[in-house]
């Protein structure tokens, strides 16, 4: 029987993934720690062997963050031979950090992002911009990855990944292609004038109805989003080296526009910058374990 299936695509739905990145033999190594970052939209689990990234997973945060924490951690460990029981110390971070069942300690995502950025990009990092699913943080830190000051927007969806998800659905472009699409215009249009995602969505819809191509509307939306983030960032000041972390780093449309407005190039990441928070947590876990064991 012939059947036509009409599928409504969920354009906001971004892909989940896991990787093992080290060839080391964990059995002959010292300390195995994990950092679990339960974000409002995405959850990240990292496994570190002697303070080096060994494996990780990135997945969407589900309705029950406790289950997500377990899933993300076991997924990161999958195929490595490491069992949850082998983990010497686990630190939870992120919005749902209190819901990581096997975490011995929780640390704020601000501290973890600064620490993780220091690990990913090195000691020259002074300003970390973390653009996450439901918040955006500008962090100033020292050469040890210690937080000096920070500013955060967690009240408004404008300038966060959640806003991009809403927009992806509006223009029916998969979220992972959104940045590229927004950069495919010959000339940058003026930014969407509304800050609020709800109003910006209505404004974008009006532009589409006026006959603007998707690319141009996407460019206008991304430009507004970059403006919004720059407002936050300039309030803490941008000192070099400047880096961007969080899920929105996957959107080149936002990253390139930020660099253009700030006239500062962000450092190239040596590993997936979505992991910064979880990596920071994993590194804190190592230090805490060493302290606990009297190793330092």
């Amino acid at each position, binding site marked *: 029987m012939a059947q036509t299936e009409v599928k409504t695509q969920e354009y906001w739905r971004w892909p989940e993934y896991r990787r093992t990145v080290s060839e080391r033999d964990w059995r002959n190594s010292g300390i195995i720690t994990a950092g679990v970052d339960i974000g409002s939209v995405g959850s990240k689990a990292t496994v570190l062997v002697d303070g080096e990234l060994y494996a990780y997973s990135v997945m969407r945060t589900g309705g029950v963050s406790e289950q997500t924490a377990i899933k993300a951690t076991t997924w990161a460990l999958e195929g490595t031979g490491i069992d949850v029981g082998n983990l010497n110390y686990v630190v939870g971070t992120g919005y749902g950090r209190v819901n990581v069942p096997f975490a011995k300690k929780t640390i704020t995502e601000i501290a973890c992002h600064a620490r993780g950025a220091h690990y990913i990009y090195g000691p020259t990092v002074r300003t970390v911009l973390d653009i996450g699913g439901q918040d955006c943080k500008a962090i100033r830190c020292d050469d040890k990855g210690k937080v000096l000051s920070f500013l955060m927007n967690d*009240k*408004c969806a404008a300038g966060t990944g*959640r806003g991009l998800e809403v927009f992806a659905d509006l223009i029916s472009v998969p979220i992972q292609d959104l940045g590229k699409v927004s950069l495919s215009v010959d000339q940058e249009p003026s930014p969407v004038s509304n800050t609020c*995602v*709800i109003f910006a969505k209505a404004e974008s819809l*009006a532009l589409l109805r006026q006959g603007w191509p998707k690319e141009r509307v996407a460019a206008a939306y991304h430009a507004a989003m970059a403006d919004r983030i720059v407002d936050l960032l300039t309030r803490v000041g941008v000192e070099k080296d400047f880096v961007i972390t969080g899920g929105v780093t996957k959107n080149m449309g936002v990253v390139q526009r930020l660099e253009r407005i700030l006239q500062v190039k962000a450092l190239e990441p040596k590993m997936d910058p979505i992991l910064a928070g979880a990596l920071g947590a994993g590194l804190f876990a190592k230090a805490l374990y060493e302290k606990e064991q009297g190793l330092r």
Partner: protein
Amino acid sequence: MITAGVDVGAKFAKVVILKDRQVLARAKALVGFDVLKSASDVFETALKDAGLSRSDIQRVVATGMGRNAILQKPPISADEAVSEVVAGAAGAYQVVPTVKTVIDVGAEEGRGIKVEGGKVKDFVINERCAAGAGTFVEAMARALEVKVEDMGPLSLKSANSIPMNAQCCVFAESEVVSLIHSKISKEDIAKAIHDAIAGRISSMVLRIGVEKDVVLIGGCALNPGFVPPLEKELHTSITVPQFPEFVSALGAAARAANPSR
């Protein structure tokens, strides 16, 4: 003298036709993609109800977000455009002459206006965030799968206070979904939604100070669930006039009759 006030809002266009302080007709309709056409259609309806034609109207004053779309443009050809603040103050003065504070909550904007004898003394506006306007309740109704007009009555059935953490419409939608998942009743969620918007409106209005009499106008004043939490937040009683969504159009019509005011 016969005048008209046309309030072209973000969502609805409202028309009031006035003859010597007596309302001859009121009409409202959704604003579509073509603002001029939507407003003109409502204007036509009001004229018909009053048994008049455009030439019978001596002066037309426009207000609202889309006011410039009808200024000097036929068929309405409004003679003058005034801000929502001026129109809201003038209209509230018409219905409650003792008014000192006007709270105007529309589809996309919220306003607090300090008034003395119908004249504006001070005001605050939120036009940047949907969480402080009617759109918020509408979006939450969608998440709750309840008709927007049922939201107020539903919330009045609840005596519980569940705090909503989200300040943003987009985030609040997710929060409503998780409240549903944690088996909180629709009544309690509806109440939480109204408490949240009342909290935001009151903190905005408190910036200019609240003095009696307080009059609530705009489309959100039609929502019975919005008034009690707002009264509680502001520690004062609030007057809701009979046709709250027409008050700014009335103010525009009154101003058309007496431009010096």
